Structures are given as C-alpha cells and as structure tokens.
C-alpha cells in the first residue's frame, strides 16, 4: 500500500469516528439496535426447537395411515414401531409385505410378519447382552382407523408369539371422552 493510500485511509477513519462522535452528541438516530431483536429471535428459535424435539419421531401420517382419535392422555415412549397402513405392514419403517384387501400379499401370510419380528427381537436381545439395556417387549402399533379388527388382531397375535407383549397403540390426540 502506498503512503498516500495509507494517509487517505487514516483520514477516512478519522472522519468516520468524528461523524459518529458528532451524532452521539446531537442525540440523533444512531441506527437500529439489532442486539435486542437477536435475543428475542434466539429465544423464539430455542423454544421452537424444543417443541419440535418433543414431537414424535419418524411418524408421517398420510391418507393411507390415519390413526383414530382418542382421549388417552399418555405420552409417546420409544419402542419398536409396527405400522399398519391400508396398503402395507412396516416394521421400524421397513416394509415387511404389502396388503391387498387387508390381507398379506405374500405366500407366507401373517407368518412373514412373525419372522420379521423374531429377527428384530433377536437383535434387541443381542443388544441386551452387549449393553445391558433390557428387552422389555414393548411394541408401538400404528394402524389406520379403517383397518378391520381382524387385521389388527393378527398383528397382535404374531407380535405376542414373538415375545412382544407390551403393546402401545398410537392414536391421535383429541378424541371425545
């Protein structure tokens, strides 16, 4: 940088400082103070993140999967999730088989679900051995409201046979008492 340029920069800085000092003495508008606004925004953001965090994970509701409304007050707890939509049965988000007229589209029938559940149970028991986290047999069942009871019943029956005995039906809040 040349000497002239340095001098010119110093003069600019000095003028800027003088202008700022001048404004403060006059008591004029100094510019919008954004710090307070930033504080508010941060608080709102933290609140929204906490609210989002408490929302159920990986449960996407569609027209094909709309759980019935209920007045039950219990909050969701983590567990193996079995989803029973109009068109498919999913275990922890992975499709086990499709459903045609609420019946399995595989040759194994409901037994295919039993096999998938036994694999998952064995995984959880291996985790139990390795980490000490006990296998409690909890199963969250999310079923569409128009699913016939026969289909729900078959799912519970298969799960019960594979040692999943603590059923938690996932329902929409807001049903009448």
């Amino acid at each position: 940088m040349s000497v002239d340029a340095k001098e010119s920069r110093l003069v600019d800085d000095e003028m800027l400082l003088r202008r700022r000092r001048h404004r403060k003495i006059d008591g004029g508008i100094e510019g919008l103070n954004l710090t307070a606004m930033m504080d508010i925004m941060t608080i709102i953001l933290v609140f929204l993140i906490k609210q989002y965090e408490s929302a159920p994970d990986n449960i996407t509701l569609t027209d094909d999967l709309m759980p019935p409304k209920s007045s039950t007050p219990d909050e969701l707890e983590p567990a193996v999730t079995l989803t029973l939509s109009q068109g498919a049965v999913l275990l922890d988000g992975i499709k086990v088989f499709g459903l045609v007229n609420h019946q399995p589209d595989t040759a194994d029938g409901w037994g295919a679900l039993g096999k998938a559940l036994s694999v998952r149970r064995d995984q959880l028991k291996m985790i139990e051995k390795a980490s000490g986290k006990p296998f409690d047999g909890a199963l969250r069942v999310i079923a569409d409201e128009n699913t016939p009871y026969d289909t729900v019943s078959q799912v519970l029956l298969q799960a019960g046979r594979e040692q999943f005995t603590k059923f938690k039906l996932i329902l929409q809040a807001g049903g009448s008492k």
Partner: protein
Amino acid sequence: MAGGGGGTEDLNLVPYLDIMVNLIMFMVTVTAYIVQLKQAPIIAPTYGSGGGGGDQKPFLTVAIGTTQMQILGGSSGGNGAGGAETIKKGDWAKLNSRLKQLKDTVPNLADNLVVSADRAVPYKEVIKAMDAVRLDVSGQPLFPNVTLATVVNK
C-alpha cells in the same frame, strides 16, 4: 496484509437475522402440521394352561358386533357378573353409564376389562369403545386396564 490496520467495525447482524427469521418461519410452519399423537397401553391376552383360576375376580367383556354391542359378565370362578346385555352400537354414553353401574353394584369386580370385536369392525370403533370404558363421566378411572381379545384363525 490487505485491510490490515483498519479500525474495529461492528459485527454485521443483518445476515444472521435473515437466517434466524427464515429458521423461525420454517419451524412455525413445520410444527403447525405435526399431529399430536398419544399412546394407549393395552394388555395382550396370555397363553397358558390357566392353572385353575378359582380365585379370579369377576371381569367384564365388551363385545362389539357389526350392528350392536354386548356387555358380557364372567369369571372363572363363576362368582359374579354373569349374563349379557345388548347396547346399540355407537351409544358410547350408554355403554359408559352401564359399566359404571356394574362397577358400583358388582362386588370385587376386576379393573381389567376385555374388549373383543367382530373381524369386520373398524379399528376406530374398538378405540372408541376403549375410550368409553377407561373413564367415567366425572373423569374417574372406570376400567383403566383393557385387554384386547385376538381372533385366532383355526
């Protein structure tokens, strides 16, 4: 070094503020579409020989058919709420009040109630029945423990 020797300038908060505003708008929009979900624990029927069960408390079963509902009484010891009573399907208030009467009148009635349904009954009606039996009109627990009966294919 370029820019060296310059005075300290205030942190420019405007881009940061833009990001924050966008994030907040995103979070507000997303949370508005989240459906609040709850869970209803149920008791699964157990397999076994039964082991006599002579001292089992009398218990009730609510059976939901395609056109009507029934309250069935029973106990392995044959010591209580026997008989059956038919209620029009969908009359959840009547089901609730009748169960309350039975709970008040039948001594030693179990807190556990069995809900059974016809194969073709939609799941939502089973849930409505569960809601109707869980609490009475004053919000007191009526039959908080529900066992869902399963249909076994022969």
